[in-house]
């Protein structure tokens, strides 16, 4: 996949990444990524949320620095130290969220960032804009207020801003996410005209159709690694459907010699047993930044693992939060062991045996500055024997925490260590210990191996299997199809907040689930 060496190809590359790695606490966001960005090409970066696209963009636009590897600009190794430096190198970025001042006019926005000691050169700008827009076939109202423009027009202004600053490389980060279908087509046409003028474009998306329609070259990222690339020659040779299926193969397909692939042990699920968790017609209203859920129905029996597959951001988190009681539902019922729990609070649901292992380990799963010991009991504050009449029993807490640390193999310098100092895998073990300890009946795992290294991934999966083997009902939400195929009894596919199908995990499950995920009937 790293089919080009810097000596031969870099002559044509505006920017090239060589073995770029970026780590954040507990996570490898980018793992030795190679990338060549050439003039006259729309280079599509495709991957799910969390695949490492944003981090990559952050490094190209000077917001972040790579931990390893190097970035070549025009063939020369160049550290991009700041956004200003990136602009000076000709790298312009249009971020996912609009970065214009809504109360200023288009012209004023374009003039922002000029030297403060000079008068804004309005006439010069108008001439320059006229020159650019005429070749691109777009019209920009320079004196309109940004707040009066549509989102598509605002995006054109952002692209124009990059052009006015003489960008040679234009990065479009999830640019279609807020556009209407017509706006998306217009953007595609605009990108085509831009690359025809010799610009290089990096186009980030997680929509397969757009990648196939607008791209010249496609790189697929998965969990921080680049798992494949479709070069332009091959791209032109294939039809749209073939490209999409090839991408699906890259994104979800089985890799050769995958150490994670293990035979799924045959478990006996008692088909006649009453479901432990029964969800019927669950619905959640959409919010500004999250999709809603509609008519979600499924059962999980004791000892069963039900997987939820789907492209990230299709309502997985909303589903988990609605079940745990963190998100208000508009209708539907949730029955745990026969009793309705949909009106209960988070704490009451936990008391009944419902456990939610969040995917956001530091954001909501733990309090990073608190010691490991306290984080074990975050959901039991005030409960005996760790608190007696509301007063903390330090000895009891430390005793049980030490026990859990041993039992779950948490590698921590001490019980007093702030939990944020641990690695991602060890933080996950703290969460596992907290959720799986006594009293659990139904456990929701949301992306339990996301961002973990191999050893911790395998350990977490074994915990989940053991959980089901103990007779608990398990809901396993994951964007990793391999993981679901290796663990689940049945796999449901979620798309746009609705379950589009539930598949028994038999031999043809991979194809069926894959088809459901891209919107085809199984």
């Amino acid at each position, binding site marked *: 996949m790293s089919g080009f060496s810097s000596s031969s190809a870099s002559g044509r590359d505006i920017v090239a990444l060589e073995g770029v790695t970026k780590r*954040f*606490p507990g*996570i490898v*966001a980018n793992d030795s990524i190679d990338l060549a960005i050439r003039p006259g090409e729309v280079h599509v970066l495709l991957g799910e949320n*969390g695949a*490492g696209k*944003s*981090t990559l963009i*952050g490094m190209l636009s000077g917001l*972040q620095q790579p931990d390893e590897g190097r970035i070549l600009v025009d063939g020369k190794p160049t550290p991009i130290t700041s956004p200003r430096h990136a602009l000076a190198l000709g790298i312009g970025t249009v971020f996912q969220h609009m970065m214009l001042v809504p109360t200023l006019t288009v012209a004023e926005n374009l003039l922002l960032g000029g030297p403060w000691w000079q008068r804004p050169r309005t006439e010069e700008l108008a001439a320059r804009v006229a020159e650019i827009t005429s070749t691109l076939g777009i019209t920009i109202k320079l004196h309109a207020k940004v707040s009066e423009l549509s989102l598509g027009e605002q995006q054109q202004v952002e692209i124009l801003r990059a052009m006015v600053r003489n960008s040679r490389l234009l990065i479009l980060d999830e640019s279609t996410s807020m556009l209407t279908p017509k706006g998306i087509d217009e953007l595609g046409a605009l990108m085509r005209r831009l690359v025809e003028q010799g610009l290089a474009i990096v186009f980030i998306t997680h929509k397969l159709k757009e990648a196939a329609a607008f791209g010249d070259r496609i790189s697929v990222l998965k969990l*921080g690694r680049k798992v494949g690339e479709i070069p332009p020659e091959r791209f032109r040779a294939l039809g749209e459907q073939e490209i999409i299926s090839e991408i699906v193969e890259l994104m979800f397909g089985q890799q050769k010699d995958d150490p994670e692939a293990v035979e799924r042990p045959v478990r006996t699920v008692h088909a006649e047993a009453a479901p432990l968790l029964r969800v019927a017609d669950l619905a959640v209203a959409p919010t500004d930044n999250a999709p809603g859920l509609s008519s979600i129905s499924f059962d999980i029996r004791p000892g069963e693992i039900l997987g939820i597959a789907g492209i990230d951001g299709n309502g997985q988190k909303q589903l988990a939060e609605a079940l*745990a*009681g*963190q998100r208000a539902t508009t209708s539907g019922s949730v029955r745990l062991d026969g009793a309705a729990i949909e009106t209960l*609070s*988070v*704490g*009451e*649901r*936990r008391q009944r045996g419902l456990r*939610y292992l*969040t995917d*956001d380990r*530091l*954001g*909501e*799963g*733990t*309090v*990073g*500055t*608190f*010691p490991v010991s*306290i984080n074990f009991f*975050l*959901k039991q*504050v*005030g409960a005996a024997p760790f*608190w007696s009449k*509301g*007063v*903390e029993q330090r000895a009891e807490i430390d005793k049980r925490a030490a026990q859990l640390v041993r039992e779950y193999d948490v590698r921590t310098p*001490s019980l*007093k*260590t*702030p939990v*944020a100092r641990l690695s991602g895998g060890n933080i996950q073990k703290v969460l596992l210990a907290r959720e799986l300890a006594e009293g659990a009946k139904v456990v929701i795992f949301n992306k339990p191996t996301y*961002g973990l290294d191999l050893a911790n991934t395998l350990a977490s999966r074994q915990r989940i299997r053991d959980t089901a083997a103990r007779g608990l009902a398990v809901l396993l939400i994951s964007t990793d199809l391999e993981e679901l195929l290796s663990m689940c009894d049945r796999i449901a596919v979620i798309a746009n907040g609705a379950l589009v199908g539930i598949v028994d995990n038999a031999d043809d499950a991979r194809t069926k689930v894959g088809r459901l995920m891209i919107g085809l009937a199984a």
Partner: protein
Amino acid sequence: MSIDTAPTVSATALDATSGAATRRDILHRLLMTLGPILAALVIAGGILLAVGVDPLAYYGYVLEKGLFSPLGIQQTLTRMAPLLFLAAGLIVAFRAGMWNLGGDGQFLLGAVTAAASAPVFVQIMPAWLALFCSFLIAMVVAMTWSLVPALLRAYQGVNEIITTLMMTFLGTSLANVLVKLVFRDPGTTVPQTRTLPVEDRLPRLFETTITSGLLLGLAAIIIVHLVMTRTAFGLKLRIVGANPRAAVHSGLGVPGLTIAVFAISAGLAGLAGAVDIIGVQGNVRADWNPAYGLAVIPAVFLARMNGFAAIGFVFLLSVLSIGGESAARRLGVPNHFTLVLVSIVLIVLALAEYVDHRYSQSRKA
């Protein structure tokens, strides 16, 4: 993976109880606290020099009046009583991540209601019960006053910094109006409340002029410290403060806790007002506003929300304010120079914190 999952540094700095408190840490902390204070004294000295005042003489007077003279130290300790209550209230709020900056309004309303009720109560019930009831009323009034920002924050997510600051202006004015129109003492021409006779005020300690309110204040701040660090309730508040999303995830009733935090914080501010009136002042004059609430905030920050450390810093603040008043009179420096001094300390401290953080980051890298 986005970058915002990286643990926030400020939270680390605020919660002093977490983390291993080894001896080196303590030494480091002492150095990081006392060093900037010394540096600030030098800078403030420079300013004094610039306005033509001998800084050594100024500091000498401050120490002499605030610390070493028998009368001065008694005044200093007496001044501590309301400041300790205010600091206790701020510790609760700040540890729970809620910035109650409305202390002055809550303080004055507590003071006015205590001043209005105490002289009436002492005539109809035993003195101890009368004072107790006045304290209670002051507390309840201040708690009620905090309901507006509390409800707005709990259910609408309105920033409490803005609302409490606005409410403090209203509270100060309302307190004034109450003094001038409702509780005005008909016996004098000066607009003030009726005066609580000296013999009915809180007893003085031993043979000194120190108010026994000091003991109440010490008790309040120590209880608050223990509640925040040793109990389930305190832990819940600290979870809300350190990571509100984790609080929701853990099933804590965040709106209820928010209202409780505001009630406790404002209640303690109201008690601060009451202890100052019932222990020391005896009445409230119109337009009286000592602005203790804002002055205490830096002390609580310097103490990093630790109750015992806060006692020390409140003592320092008292010395500065009692000694500063005297030194200012004698040297012709404006009375508010104390505040200048305190703010220089804060700025230098923040800078030191920043440099220290950068240093430890670069050492790690």
